[in-house]
């Protein structure tokens, strides 16, 4: 007789227990907002092997990015549509052996900066005198990013300026100035792009250029003919800008060959990067698209075959904003990190860490998303990220910046954003249907992430405890050994915020080695050259990149952390020409300058 009342009591207790589970999980996971604490450098060195100090002001850099002001028809949602443009690229433009920094500005009439490394920890802006500052004049569009590559193999890195507007190519005149050669090169009059990559897709020793359109190229964002210029879907938009592949003809001119070689997409590209993902000797092209799936263009040396769905990276649509490659397991294979959006309680896309499946390579390569398992899935409204061994322990770590629009801290635009984003394409495709932002934030003031690779399959976020405490609207991240001291420093470009230079101090016990490559038969920038380093029974590969992350380019020099007491066996360089070079007798703590053997 008493069976049901007793059962009901027990089930009621069970029910209350279920309701308490989220609270218990929250406490156990310790996922609380970390308090901003004063950096304890000794503890950071002892616990993590490094710490970062933000030194931009001391280094003579007081750059604050300015955003564009687009057509007044977009005024209600201006903070959102004008939310990109802060970028950073690292280049040794004058070949003095010290990395310099180029940053873009995006207000009409604003000026970009080229910070020359003065070798003493300070930087000096020389963009104006060298002719690459005043590039955002009204009527020509504004800067969104930059990538450097020596397209004419004269030994000096040239500049391609990514714009919403008139794309620009600047020839580097032996480090003494830049000459605008956009028309001679054959660039189109207008592209609304956020990403570009230098790479030699056909292995002819000349750098080619991929440019990924975001808004359609017939849209002038300052003089809109119609407000129907927004994506026609939040997940499957196919009304974005076209893609360009400029094949380098070798005479200072480029031929646009995208359709001819199999690249034909109107997704909304935000990030792209190229690397030899399958060990074929040909660089493949990975494109992360906003409002849709990623695309992976497999390269057979002449043509590309889009294999996003086939390889697993292009099935679930998200908001792709970053492409970075890293051999995170020291197994000689690249994982790909694609950033997306996660906002507690509203939208949890999760970032993707695409890891190649065991035993699959070549055309059968397949990826699985390990972001959750490895702890790098949730990063807020994520933008730029880069892999690099920040504590020189021998494994690649991951730095991620984030934050979309930081305005009123107490008012959020998320409700209105979800209201419109779930709707039909005819509604969301027209900007006039979008509710006004009215000074509200959208995933603003977010804490950054610096995930240390523990070498055992997990990444641990240590950002706060090693000194990364900013909450600006981060966009681009670039890594470089700015002080030439064997530590990777971090440069972060923030939208409508300051350029941050995080100087890295690494425990002296942790060793390193760096390589600066120069092609002869291959393109002189050596973009696409891969170094495989064997030490202490492990192997790591890295490749010289012509642009990666979000609107960013790391230093072309390759930096390997080696951990304590390293025994370096050898380094094998595979040049884009196919030549393979083996280096023995290497010692740690040195930068090796290697020229491709004739």
């Amino acid at each position, binding site marked *: 007789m008493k069976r049901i009342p007793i*059962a009901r009591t027990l*089930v*009621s207790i069970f029910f209350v227990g279920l309701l308490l589970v989220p609270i218990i999980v929250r406490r156990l996971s310790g996922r609380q907002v970390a308090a901003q604490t004063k950096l304890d450098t000794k503890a950071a060195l002892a616990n993590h092997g490094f710490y970062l100090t933000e030194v931009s002001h001391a280094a003579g850099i007081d750059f604050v990015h300015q955003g564009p002001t687009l057509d007044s028809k977009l005024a209600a949602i201006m903070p959102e549509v004008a939310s990109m443009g802060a970028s950073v690229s690292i280049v040794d433009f004058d070949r003095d052996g010290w990395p310099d920094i180029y940053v873009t500005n995006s207000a009409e009439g604003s000026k970009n900066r080229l910070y020359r490394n003065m070798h003493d920890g300070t930087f000096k802006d020389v963009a104006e005198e060298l002719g690459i500052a005043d590039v955002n004049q009204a009527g020509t569009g504004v800067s969104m990013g930059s990538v450097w590559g020596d397209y004419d193999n004269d030994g000096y890195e040239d500049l391609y300026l990514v714009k919403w507007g008139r794309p620009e190519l600047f020839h580097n005149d032996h480090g003494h100035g830049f000459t605008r050669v956009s028309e001679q090169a054959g660039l189109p009059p207008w592209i609304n792009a956020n990403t570009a990559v230098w790479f030699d897709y056909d292995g002819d020793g000349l750098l080619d250029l991929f440019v990924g359109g975001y808004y359609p190229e017939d849209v002038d964002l300052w003089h809109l003919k119609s407000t129907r210029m927004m994506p026609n879907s*939040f*997940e499957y938009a196919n009304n974005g800008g076209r893609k360009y592949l400029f094949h380098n003809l070798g005479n200072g001119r480029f031929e646009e060959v995208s359709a001819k070689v199999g690249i034909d997409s109107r997704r909304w590209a935000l990030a792209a990067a190229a690397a030899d993902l399958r060990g074929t000797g040909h660089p493949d092209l990975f494109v992360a698209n906003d409002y849709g799936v990623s695309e992976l263009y497999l390269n057979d040396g002449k043509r590309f075959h889009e294999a996003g769905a086939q390889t697993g990276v292009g099935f679930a649509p998200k908001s792709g904003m970053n492409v970075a490659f890293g051999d995170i397991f020291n197994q000689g294979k690249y994982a790909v990190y694609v950033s997306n959006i996660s906002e507690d309680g509203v939208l949890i896309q999760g970032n993707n860490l695409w890891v190649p499946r065991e035993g699959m390579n070549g055309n059968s390569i397949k990826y699985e998303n390990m972001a959750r398992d490895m702890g790098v899935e949730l990063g807020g409204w994520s933008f730029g990220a880069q892999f690099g061994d920040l504590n020189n322990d021998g494994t690649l770590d991951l730095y991620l910046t984030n934050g979309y629009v930081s305005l009123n801290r107490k008012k959020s635009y998320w409700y209105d954003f979800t*209201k419109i984003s779930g*709707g039909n394409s005819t*509604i969301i495709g027209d900007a006039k*249907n979008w509710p006004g932002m009215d000074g509200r934030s959208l995933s603003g003031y977010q804490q950054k992430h610096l995930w240390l690779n523990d070498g055992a399959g997990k990444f641990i976020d240590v950002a706060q405890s090693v000194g990364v405490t900013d909450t600006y609207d981060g966009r681009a991240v670039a890594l470089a050994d700015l002080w030439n001291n064997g530590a990777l420093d971090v440069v972060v470009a923030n939208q409508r915020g300051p350029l941050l230079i995080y100087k890295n101090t690494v425990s002296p016990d942790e060793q390193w080695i760096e390589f600066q490559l120069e092609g002869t038969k291959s393109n002189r920038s050596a973009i696409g050259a891969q170094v495989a380093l064997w030490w202490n029974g492990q192997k790591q590969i890295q490749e010289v990149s012509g642009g990666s992350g979000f609107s960013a380019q790391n230093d072309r020099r390759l930096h390997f952390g080696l951990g304590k007491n390293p025994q370096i066996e050898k380094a094998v360089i595979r040049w884009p020409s196919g030549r393979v070079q083996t280096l023995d007798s290497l010692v740690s703590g040195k930068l090796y300058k290697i020229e491709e053997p004739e």
Partner: protein
Amino acid sequence: MSHLAIAAPVPPGKNAGWRQMFSLDNRFMPPLLITLILLVGNVSFGILESYQKTLLAIVSSMVAELILGRIFLHKWPHLASAYITGISVGILLRSPFFWPYALCSLLAITSKYVLRVKGRHIWNPSNFGISAMVFLAAESVATLSIQWGNNLGAMLVIWLLGSVIIWRLRRFHICAVYVISFIALAFLRTWITGDPLLSEISPITGPEYQLFIFFMITDPKTTVRSKKGQCIVAFAVAVVEMLLRLDQSVYAPFYALFMVGPIALLVEMWLNSRRISGSATTVNP
């Protein structure tokens, strides 16, 4: 989102014979519809991040139903409603973790057996589960974010198919009242907020609302009995939702049903008890 099939069988008519031959038992229609939505959505748009999570939600839901049904009803329950609850949780819930899928399903099914008044459970199970999760575990879960590609064709197919099935189950009036109320109140909201009208109408064109309308607000077990009452409740849900929307609540429809549904049932029970006691008084002076 669960019991469409259990009530409202098709009444026999003069064509009942051939109808029966060519039609499925009504109790299988909603599970079939939601399975179709799941499969079409996932094959064409990849709405599921993983089959494992959806499977976990379904299995958790069905196992809980079997155990609790056996304990409280002394029989093995029909699993159609638990299946729909599980699959709804699998579609609607978004989380990078596995535990919320199991927890949400368990909460939904257990609520049916724990939160009862005079033998009736008063919350729609999956509405209870989803609302509890987005309220209590906001840092771990969200609801469906993929929008069928914001595609008009996919939207029309689901609306058409859903409407036919709901019509057949004689609950179309609930959907109609809710949709008309939502659109009418969108005019009011846009007048109050100054936001574009289409932005106020926009949510109802998404898949979340398709599931909400066809599987939650029409649930026979947690809606009032009379047709007029059902229409009033549907309108009340839309009104409360509007108020929540004016307060910028992202999960306004779920919370509105969470609030209005049980109140409506309690009012109905109270009215019924008054009527019964009134009749008893008349019969036995």
